[in-house]
């Protein structure tokens, strides 16, 4: 494709303008990544708002690293040529909730029948969780002849539907869960992690183009190091994280969120570099049961890229 020149002195990173992507946002805005990689390598960033687009860009060799949810990470791995897209690290865990519309009578899963529920995108993390949750509770979505109508519609549109009262509930990531709760009076029925073993599941992962990693081990090692360091910084500086995040929103979208929303949203998720492998495998099982992983079976045994950061860093110094 047309955009790639030499990769030697360049690393191209994609992420979303969401609070779950605090690592790359803080890492870029505070200059942590730049500092760690050194000034020989130029960092280019792209801000996306959907997983599939990030995967397409990886496939097209337009980016080298991306922060995405487990759904796209798995699809990216399975659909890539020679499994050229793999998970390098975790970035966040948790951070999705089920929000009930103030006028809706949903108090527990037993009230879901006949209701209209939204999730942001087919096959994304919340969508798989919702559909799995429904089937675990003996419910089926309308298109399979069941009683629950599932809408896959983007977060801003979910907001509009919430305002109008056209939906009864939505399974959404942060900060949308908090926005629906604080701005529109929605009721948080449960945090998604409550449904998972150990109350944790990977919600944002760092994935990479394997070719790039193999060609640029030192850049990647340095990058990963600052990825880990940023995790620590965020967890020790939540207030400053909020400020950085809002500054980013302001400069990128020309708008920011209220401090409350960010604080609550941030407290509802865990910034961690642990990819929580078990949650990814069970997520894949659920997605497969929904027919999302193709007709030919799937094999995730290679999905994690084994990358020995420490020995490379030692060698290079």
């Amino acid at each position, binding site marked *: 494709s047309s955009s790639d020149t030499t990769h030697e002195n360049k690393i191209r990173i994609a992420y979303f303008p969401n609070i779950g992507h605090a690592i790359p946002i803080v890492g870029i805005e505070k200059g942590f990544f730049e500092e760690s990689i050194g000034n020989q390598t130029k960092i280019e960033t792209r801000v996306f708002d959907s997983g599939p687009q990030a995967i*397409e860009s990886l*496939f097209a060799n337009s980016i080298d690293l991306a922060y995405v949810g487990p759904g*796209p990470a798995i699809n990216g791995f399975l*659909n890539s040529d020679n499994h050229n897209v793999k998970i390098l690290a975790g970035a966040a865990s948790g951070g999705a909730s089920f929000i009930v519309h103030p006028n809706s009578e949903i108090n527990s899963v037993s009230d879901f029948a006949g209701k209209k529920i939204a999730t942001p995108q087919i096959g994304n993390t919340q969508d798989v969780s919702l559909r799995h949750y429904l089937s675990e509770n003996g419910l089926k979505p309308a298109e399979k002849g069941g009683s629950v109508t599932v809408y896959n519609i983007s977060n801003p*549109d979910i907001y509009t539907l919430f305002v109008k009262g056209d939906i009864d509930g939505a399974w959404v990531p942060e900060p949308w869960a908090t926005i629906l709760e604080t701005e529109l009076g929605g009721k948080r029925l449960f945090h998604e992690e409550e449904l998972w073993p150990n109350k944790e599941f990977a919600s944002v992962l760092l994935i990479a183009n394997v070719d790039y990693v193999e060609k640029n081990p030192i850049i990647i090692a340095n990058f990963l190091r600052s990825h880990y360091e940023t995790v620590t910084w965020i967890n020790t500086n939540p207030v400053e994280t909020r400020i950085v995040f809002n500054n980013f929103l302001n400069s990128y979208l020309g708008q920011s969120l209220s401090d409350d929303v960010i604080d609550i949203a941030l407290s509802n998720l865990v910034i961690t570099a642990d990819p929580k492998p078990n949650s990814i495998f069970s997520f894949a099982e659920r997605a497969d049961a929904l027919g999302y992983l193709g*007709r030919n079976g799937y094999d995730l045994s290679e999905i994690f890229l084994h990358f020995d950061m420490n020995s490379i860093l030692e060698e290079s110094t």
Partner: protein
Amino acid sequence: MIITGKNFTPHRIAFYAGIIVIWQIISMVGVWPDNIFPSPYEVAEDLAYSAADGSLFYGIATSMWRLSIGLAIAISGGVVLGIFMARVEVINQTVGSLVLGLQSIPSIAWVPLAILWFGLTDVGIIFVTAIGAIFAVTINTYTGVKNIDPHYIEAARNMGAKGTQLITAVLIPAAFPYMISGFKQGWAFAWRGVIGAELLFSFLGLGFLLNAGRSLNDVSQVISIMIVIMVIGLVIDTVVFKKLENKVMSRWGLQ
């Protein structure tokens, strides 16, 4: 729907067969990896699969009925508006200019408003469809009417044609060769609008299937649905618009 031999000429068949062969060769040579450039075989397999489980036909039927209503609105609205724009300068200056402006807005930007006004209903999708198609009909009707030989209108008025009579007996038939072109485009844009709206509303139909393919990064499903969309477009063009066009053209002695 009778597809006559004339519509599917040897040339056409050879052309499409050629495309498929080239496509297969490219995918075999491996210029692009399989995940971004699937082979025709894989696409056909996907198609067969979604045909077998019925989801394809259900999707087609859903999209088609939304399209019919949206297109009907676009055609009737577009013809009326186009005629008035061509004949009444005030309307051209006001409503006409607004339609034109509205047309520059991508359907995707309409979706939030459609949701706001109509909710997640068929009506919302039909609105986005109609708004996507009306302009092509309007502007072609407008151009057709503006370009009518003024002598036809003079003769008709001299013989007593007025108001609605003038419109139905002269303006519409005289502008018809261009209006067909508007209908044809209106059809294509409505088809496109309905798919686009379904994709964003993610609410049944072919657009939904397309979105599902994209969300799962399943390029061969995306391409298979795109092909279905195209084929339906071509068939309708051939059995409806080409026939209409040929008939009108031969009447006017243009063939």
